């Protein structure tokens, strides 16, 4: 899976789970604001991303990943 394929899969999965349009997800958009995450649903976002990508996001690093672009980069580096 290359980075573009990964981005498409992640976006589709997040849009379906959090009931938004794929078009709402852009690289510069804030993840928490776009998905309307609180401390609990943040766990679901992490779990979903891990399931789709196979990459485990360290708990200590979750808070530093602010935008979707940062998330894609984090995952792509670890594929």
């Amino acid at each position, binding site marked *: 899976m290359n980075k573009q394929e990964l981005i498409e899969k992640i976006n589709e999965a997040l849009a379906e789970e959090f009931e938004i349009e794929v078009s709402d997800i852009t690289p510069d958009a804030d993840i928490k604001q776009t998905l309307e995450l609180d401390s609990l*649903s943040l766990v*679901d976002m*992490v779990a979903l991303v*891990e399931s789709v990508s196979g990459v485990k996001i360290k708990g200590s690093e979750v808070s530093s990943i602010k935008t979707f672009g940062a998330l894609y980069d984090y995952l792509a580096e670890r594929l």
Partner: protein
Amino acid sequence: MMNRVVITGMGIYSCLGKTLDEVRDSLYYGKSGIIFDPERKEMGFRSALTAKIEVPDLRKELSRSQRVYMPEQAKYAYCATADALKAAGIDQDYLNTHEVGLLYGNDSSADPVVRAVDTMREKKDTTLCGSGAIFQSMNSTVTMNLGCIFKLKGINLTVSGACASGSHAIGLGALLIQNGLQEMIVCGGAQEVNPFSIGSFDGISAFSIRESEPQKASRPFDRDRDGLVPGGGAATVILESYESAVRRGAPILAEVLGYGFSSNGDHISSPNVDGPARSLKMAIRRAGIDIREIGYVNAHATSTHVGDANEAKAIFNVFGEKSVEVTSTKSQTGHEMWMAGASEVIYSMLMMKNGFIAGNINFENPDEDSAHLLIPSKTIEKKFDTFLSNSFGFGGTNSTLIIRNL
């Protein structure tokens, strides 16, 4: 001076229907909600019989952040409670400005537990269980979800009293209102229907294996009964002080006259006669009525050999020979367990309001105990104003409610 306690709204999500009208018609026409579920056979079940319930799709009614914490039985309970509140004339503004309580029977939430454990074992990563798993897994999942969704501000408590849970919830709610501690309480019972929830119950040979005739399998009091059939869903009644109901101009449907309870102090699964009889007598005593005023007895009878026989003895001991119609609606619904005490109040209410007693379907031949009871196997037209409903559970917990038409 005790407050009078009345029922001002009802809602149900049952294998007999999702509206009160549907359920009334199913009761009247003797419909069975039981099917054969091939998936259970593949899972190694001794009996693949179950009530058929569809899990509601609540995407239009509730947000993702509300739904993610709800196991199936909380979804059933949401539907039943939304309908009951609407029927009682209660809107969100009222709930926001009054201390409305919540007492709901629930005694398991197996499916989310199993799924979370499977994930932990397979993935070795607890994060993958998701945020909903813990809230879905707890026994109090129904009350925690309903309390947050409807923004309830009074007592918030799950009643786990095995198969008497729903009945105890109503009885305890009535006690709180009688004593002036709450003016209104949402009461009910919910039961999950997934295979994981009752696999181990199947394992103790408690279920009917009349798989070739699913709709004839649940046959309480019948000589040839061979076990219960599991069911589920949810049922909600709105309990309210009489004064509050009058003040609101609410529809006053009935009055909770008596709540009796007891514990057998005996075997974990085999009921006795003394415990249930004491529960019946306590309810009648607290109701302060002549036993002849009771026009219908909704029995707990689940279609097991010992349970039905001992309940028949207890009813006979209290009421005597064939003095009042006795039926078990479980002949149509199967055993709705944690939900049953609440749903059977609603089934009985629907009969009382519509002047009939639903036949105890599949009652073809009495045994030596049920022969002493008046058990119609087909629906009869009968007007009655007071009924008694029994619910008994594992560990010997017993609950009896007496309710009068208003």
